[in-house]
């Protein structure tokens, strides 16, 4: 299990234990974290699991892949550390990961 923290735009924190091998999106959905709708179920096709990766984590998590970039580039509110969290796998490396939940997804 890997600890991940989701921080809502108003500061409220959701700390969850995520199962390795799933995605950060799954961790949010399985733990009823608000603001992660994940309409497409993890196919990188709906952009409703948008998160801002904490600056200090972004290097480790890495940038968007091509499919992700294609759909994300349509969003005027995307930031430099934006990711679709269905594309971010949960691994031991991610222990302590912090991501923020954008206001536009509420």
């Amino acid at each position, binding site marked *: 299990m890997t600890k991940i923290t989701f921080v809502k735009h108003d500061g409220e924190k959701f700390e969850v234990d995520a199962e390795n091998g799933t995605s950060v999106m799954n961790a949010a959905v399985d733990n009823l974290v608000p603001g992660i709708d994940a309409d*497409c179920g993890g*196919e990188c*096709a*709906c952009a409703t699991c948008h998160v801002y990766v904490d600056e200090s984590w972004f290097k480790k998590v890495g940038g968007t892949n091509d499919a992700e970039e294609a759909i994300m580039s349509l969003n*005027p509110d995307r930031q430099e550390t934006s990711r679709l969290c269905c594309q971010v796998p949960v691994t031991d490396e991610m222990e302590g990961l912090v991501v923020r939940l954008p206001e*536009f*997804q509420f």
Partner: protein
Amino acid sequence: MSVAEREFNHMFGKDPYSIPLEGYDVSQPELFMSGTELPYFERLRKEAPVHYCNDSENGPYWSVTRYKDIMEVESNPAVFSSEPGITLADPEPDFDISMFIAMDEPKHGDQRKTVQDIVAPTSLANLEPIIRERIEGILDTLPLNETFDWVDKVSIELTGQMLATLFDFPFEQRRKLTYWSDVATTIPGPDALIQSIEERQNILLTECLPAFTELWNQRVNEPPKGDLISMLAHGKETRDMGPMEFMGNLMLLIIGGNDTTRNSLSGGVLFLNQNPDQYDKLRAHPELIPKMIPEIIRYQTPLTHMRRTATEDYTLNGQNIKKGDKVAMWFLSGNRDPEAIENPDDFIIDRERPRQHLSFGFGIHRCMGNRLAEMQLRVTWEEILKRFEKVEVVGDPVRNYSPFVRGYAELPVQLRPIAK
């Protein structure tokens, strides 16, 4: 193919499992008007999930009918282009109406970004009280225990008022928006709203375009404000559009917000009547409304398909699609695919993951107004449940003659008040 042979191929009224698959053409509008289309799709899903129809009203085309394969097509816009159009019928010659739903990158994204703020969550929060007030106004004037047409009095009225609000269109003329949308999507015919393609073009050019041009000229000389025409008139990527592109994008937004919501509003009433146990559950648990709304949208699938055109040869689930081929992604069928959705033919208002359906499409062309549509439907059902014990369907619905816009021309109902 001669007319006589075409007649021979008509599938309406025939057993879906006895017609040879070579002759299968699920785009025949009679199937949808009679409400008998689903078993034909079921057979394709089972026996030929990526199926080539070698002749139809609109020429040869592929049908993609399984959820997973539709996702594959949606996720690959470079191979499956939205140009030149998103319906099986090709764009009308000499009528070069252009809209961003039928464009590829980068133009699609640039134009879409200009208008999507109107359906951003913050805009929706501002719109909700206005929508609720309009819905209350409509519901409060309906007769009790008396037959009337739900489609006309509620579904059309509500979506018409909504569109007039989003466009800041003269409110008393709002039915014109509904009318133009219907003109744009109706299949011409002797008994139809329009008799010919020429009539369609004529109405759009001589009525719709001048009306919108006038509003454009007015908005472009005012400071930018939050309505869609102002957004287009001031947007960096859209302010230099030619008249046909301007009208195209307006028609896209009108049609997008008209038929879809309208038919989901009518469909919901029908499905709850067909499934009284679900209506009981809803009355006992009105908090289920937000889950019920996506289920209504799945079950209705108000736009049955979108078309793509292959830009290169591509193998999809074992079938060789050739460059230039038309490909129909049948959302209606994917939404009934048991491999993706449990008990897909059942209408269940409290499904586990109700938003996992294809009605809005997926990928970069995914419906922009999905959350607005859900909000309108949610608020409508909240207000219905406050007022009426039952919206009772008292006769058969009249369905649309269209393989694209799946919905209702009439739905007779009576309202039962809540016992005091």
